[in-house]
């Protein structure tokens, strides 16, 4: 990283992605039966699926903000 200031700004920007999982607060969006998936009403599979969205977002932010030379 040659430009520390820029790296710092990037870090900061990426952290905002962590708000994406909080969209689950919009309850009326998923309080419905259709469309079903493998017999699961939307209410259930959407929330279970959102776990993976949260994992992917957090994982991405982790790799985007972690210093590259760390092997720990």
């Amino acid at each position: 990283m040659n430009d520390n200031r820029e790296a710092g700004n990037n870090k900061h920007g990426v952290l905002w992605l962590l708000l994406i999982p909080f969209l689950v607060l919009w309850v009326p969006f998923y309080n419905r039966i259709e469309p079903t998936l493998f017999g699961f009403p939307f209410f259930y599979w959407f929330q279970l699926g959102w776990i993976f969205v949260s994992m992917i977002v957090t994982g991405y932010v982790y790799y985007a903000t972690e210093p590259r030379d760390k092997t720990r």
Partner: protein
Amino acid sequence: MPLNTTALTVFVIFFAFVTFIGFASARWKRGDLDQLHEWGLAGGRFGTVITWFLLGGDLYTAYTFVAVPALAFGAGAIAFFAVPYTIIIYPFLFAVFPRLWSVARARGYITAADFVRGRYGDRWLALAVALTGILATMPYIALQLVGLEIVIAAMGVQLAGVLVYLPLIIAFAILAAFDYFAGLRAPAAIAVVKDLMIYVTVFAAIIVIPAEVGGWDKIFASVPQQQLLLADNFGAYTAYGSLFLGSAMALFLYPHSVTGILSSSSRHVIRRNAALLPAYSFLLGLIALLGFMAIAVGVKGMSAYASGFEQFGNNFAVPALILQVFPSWFVGFAFAAIGIGALVPAAIMSIAAANLFTRNIYREFIRPDCDPRTESSMAKRMSLVAKLGALLFIMLLRKEYAINMQLLGGIWIIQTFPAMILGLYTRWLDPKALLVGWAAGMICGTWMAVMTNFAPIYRLDLFGTVVPAYIAIYSVLLNFAVSLVLSLVFNAQAKTRADETIPTDYATETGPGMGH
């Protein structure tokens, strides 16, 4: 219920196995257990994998595994709040708690109250945080016993008179012993076994049961129509949303969560785990669905389980389901998973409560000159007292008190949010203002809980519109408001602000170490 010998034998074998692991763990990642940070935080040596098992075993307790599907069984969709709750805790953990880890490592803090003491230089605010933590934790330990009690009864162990509590006493004596000798290392080692057992049990259930009852659509079709979704109105949405938001805000303020976080070996471990721990959220979602499976299988109408339902209510749904669909040896395995699942969080909670008492009450107010050895031995004895207290709680008082107290615990612990979480970012808030805000939140929250007869949702009349929401959210909003307004007033008069921390403390990778 007749005595299920096969299940009981398997159960006892697994219990014996984890007891052995508990004692053997004293020698693991060896440290001087006469130092509080070694006994109570395992020297902060846990890497990514151990922390994953430890926090997983710590946050998703035996009571969760019984109560969440019980709620689904009895009330339907609302029980699924456990899923969004455990979704939003992890981005929060990722963004906020590495700062707590760093400042704790930089300054040698081992409890949340230690941090508050150092940040604000106010021992009374620290005392409030410590007392809130202990108060919120005690009924939580007691509830773990309830989980254990149910599975023991489900195996047909029926003792009369004074012997009724014998199995619980034996289980807790074992727990107390390995905790005393090995400290946090014991539950960490056992958590690995316990979590693997829970994963096996749940995956067996979701493979076997849907096939048995004819698919997932049959399972969902068996749920009463009006319970399959939340009611389609604003109040149902605010209740659901605030319930998981408030629960999420409270979770990492609990002493046992803080202990789990501070025992990790680096801030990277915490960040990595924020991405990896949601695997447990998925597991919890599936566990919630066990409640629906219990409806589909129809355990409630079966005479074999009538006495269990009579004694434990809907909390008996999952044990009944397991008894109904699995062979005896697997019943023993699954019940051992739940039983051991009670020991891990109970162990961590009692260690966390002991750390708080020792550091923030005993050393702060009673024996400021105590040496590290005395401090460590005090904490070991306090962890015994905490467990004994929980045991007496269950033996002498009605179970509903433990459940009500645990609800109050969540409302109380969230009142430490302004001091702790905002404190990680700014020293602008005044400690006296925070203390008054804390008291306002505690009183308001407790009052609302009493008003609703210990239901979590309070229907607040806001300018003619009734908004039902989780009491913890309402009371912590009051707490925020009071803290902010009084800080404006007090800051206008204040000349200096006590603060032993410096900005770089919050980002440090290593720091001078622990427990100095």
